[in-house]
């Protein structure tokens, strides 16, 4: 060893060495800068998206309401069967009372247009729930119909010439008398969350879509979670490594990349045509979304299982644990945080999926939330799709609001995934 010639001493302070080091530091700084620029771009784009959604959608979170005094005349509302009453008459009487100075029927019809078309239903629901008001007067906050709602929120510009406005000068004058009498209010729009869909924007809400999405995710979770974990455990722990398992693995990875619309076609052809499951049902949607989520679930679970240090397996095997004991008592519990994170991210993906749901008819117009997984339903993304297609002015802001609600759910789920990972992750 001592015979070998030692390398020539290197001059660390020579200009060449200094320049080399400088270049290396510059490369470090450049790499950091590229990353920073990318992050800022991503955050910027996200900011633009959220800002534009908030700008158009924020008005949908409040609703113009008008305080109207109704009289449940026993003539119109039979006390023995209040639901069968003539509530249209109750509403038009109330409008006449609201504007006692109007006697022209045409003008009166215009005035009734200020109240939502669903006013009669709202009054009926109230009277059915409180039958003691029959024969008395009571005041209800009734949503204003869409044009007046938009007028009140400033979406319709009163200074525009009349022919370029959705509401005429006469209508504005009527609405302003109500404003002057202090009958107009704009409270928080709970209806957005608790009403089902409607033709009238002022009454349309996301309840049906939220319930539908919930059923969808429930079915997806119940299928893809156990099947995904079992498949991953088999592939990771039991399957021999040969050509067949390689083929299975390649195909699972391929499935993860199949466009979702293909899964929708498959669902239509197989679940609806062959198995005869009901159209538009969350069960079918959930089955289709499970197919989509399964590859992700399997890949994530396998990665989590693989990340468990072999020392834990050896420890268990070393005291004579059998294979299922090693997996169920030691490996799986340690892998659960990773699996849960993957599951939630997979479900979040499924929550935002639209194309396959359109193909199996989950974009139906439904005015009540689904009662179960076999009943027709919509989901949040398909509801957004339906509203985005609707011509009424009020649906523009409601579409943005619905997107914000969907994003809210997604952020919640992803935050939950991060929380679970940090809460249960064990280090050793």
């Amino acid at each position, binding site marked *: 060893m001592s015979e070998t010639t030692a390398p020539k001493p290197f001059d660390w302070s020579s200009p060449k060495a200094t320049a080399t080091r400088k270049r290396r530091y510059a490369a470090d700084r450049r790499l950091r800068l590229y990353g920073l620029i990318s992050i800022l771009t991503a955050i910027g784009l996200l900011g633009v998206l959220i800002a534009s959604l908030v700008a158009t959608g924020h008005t949908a979170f409040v609703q113009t309401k008008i305080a109207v005094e109704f009289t449940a005349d026993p003539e119109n509302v039979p006390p023995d069967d209040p639901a069968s009453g003539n509530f249209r008459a109750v509403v038009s009487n109330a409008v006449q009372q609201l504007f006692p100075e109007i006697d022209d029927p045409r003008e009166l019809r215009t005035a009734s247009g200020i109240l939502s078309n669903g006013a009669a239903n709202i009054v009926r629901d109230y009277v059915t729930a409180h039958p003691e008001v029959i024969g008395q007067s009571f005041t209800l906050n009734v949503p204003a119909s869409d044009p007046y709602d938009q007028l009140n929120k400033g979406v319709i510009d009163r200074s525009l010439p009349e022919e370029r406005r959705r509401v005429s000068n006469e209508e504005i004058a009527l609405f302003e008398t109500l404003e002057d009498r202090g009958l107009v209010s704009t409270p928080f729009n709970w209806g957005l969350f608790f009403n089902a869909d409607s033709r009238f924007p002022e009454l349309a809400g996301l309840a049906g879509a939220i319930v539908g999405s919930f059923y969808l995710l429930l079915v997806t979770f119940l299928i893809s979670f156990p099947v995904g974990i079992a498949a991953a455990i088999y592939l990771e722990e039991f399957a021999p490594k040969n050509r067949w398992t390689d083929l299975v693995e390649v195909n699972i990875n391929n499935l993860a990349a199949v466009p979702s619309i293909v899964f929708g076609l498959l669902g239509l052809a197989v679940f609806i045509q062959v198995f005869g499951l009901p159209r538009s049902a969350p069960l079918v949607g959930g089955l289709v979304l499970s197919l989509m989520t399964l590859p992700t679930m399997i890949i994530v679970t396998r990665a989590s299982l693989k990340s468990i240090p072999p020392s834990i397996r050896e*420890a268990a095997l070393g005291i004579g644990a059998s294979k299922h004991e090693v997996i169920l008592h030691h490996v799986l519990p340690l892998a659960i945080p990773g699996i849960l994170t993957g599951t939630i991210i997979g479900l979040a993906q499924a929550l935002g999926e639209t194309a396959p749901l359109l193909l199996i008819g989950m974009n139906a117009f439904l005015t009540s939330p689904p009662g179960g997984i076999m009943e027709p339903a919509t989901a949040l993304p398909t509801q957004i799709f339906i509203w985005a297609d609707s011509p009424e002015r009020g649906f523009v802001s409601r579409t943005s609001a619905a997107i914000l609600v969907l994003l809210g759910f997604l952020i919640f789920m992803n935050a939950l995934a991060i929380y679970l990972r940090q809460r249960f992750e064990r280090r050793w």
Partner: protein
Amino acid sequence: MNMLTDAAVETALEGAPESKAAKMRGEKVNVFYGGKQALFDVSLDVGENQVTALIGPSGCGKSTFLRCLNRMNDTIDIARVTGKITLDDEDIYNPRIDVVELRARVGMVFQKPNPFPKSIYENVAYGPRIHGLASAKGDLDGIVETSLQKAGLFNEVKDRLHEPGTGLSGGQQQRLCIARAIAVSPEVILMDEPCSALDPIATARVEELIDELRENYTIVIVTHSMQQAARVSQRTAMFHLGNLVEEGPTDKMFTNPEDKRTQDYITGRFG
């Protein structure tokens, strides 16, 4: 070079007091990892109630041989074992042998302490529980306590049995792993460099423990430390490049080895 295969003959010839009847016996053991052969015709006996040390430079096959003794190599897909290994004259590679039972009878302690990320109590109780060794809750408590006592850990942890085992110090964790192995009442304990991740004080504690355990258990220990082999073992086997170079009573191996390679290794000339 004459490889010694029969410990009894050896005993008679040398009159070494430590030699006892063979508990485990390997005959012409070959191990292949895929196309690569890791062990060549190794024949080695493990005497009952004594400590057998396996020494040799890295990659010499001593851990591979150790892992054959409780069939841990089964868990490696590409590993293949030929030859015969017996436990109490029963071939452990016989297809009829129950691996779960074998691994309970031949326990193992690993290089890096690897307690389960569970409580100290659960770490020790797990083995007896899966094998059904305790019929009542009280029995299990008893097994846990005795095992921890035998591993010399009980006094240090008796007040925190339900705290995580991973919170102990390295040396304590390794003794916990020994307690875990003891808890299933094994006959043989295999130790794969059990002190390589420990500091000298913890090492001394574990070595002391190994010496105490010899009374009730047959122990095979793989070690990189010649001093450790000299301190704890009664017999030593020297491996090199997958071959068993030499095997004999420890004091003879360290004072008067027959093979030049053993001499070179123990004097630190290679390895």
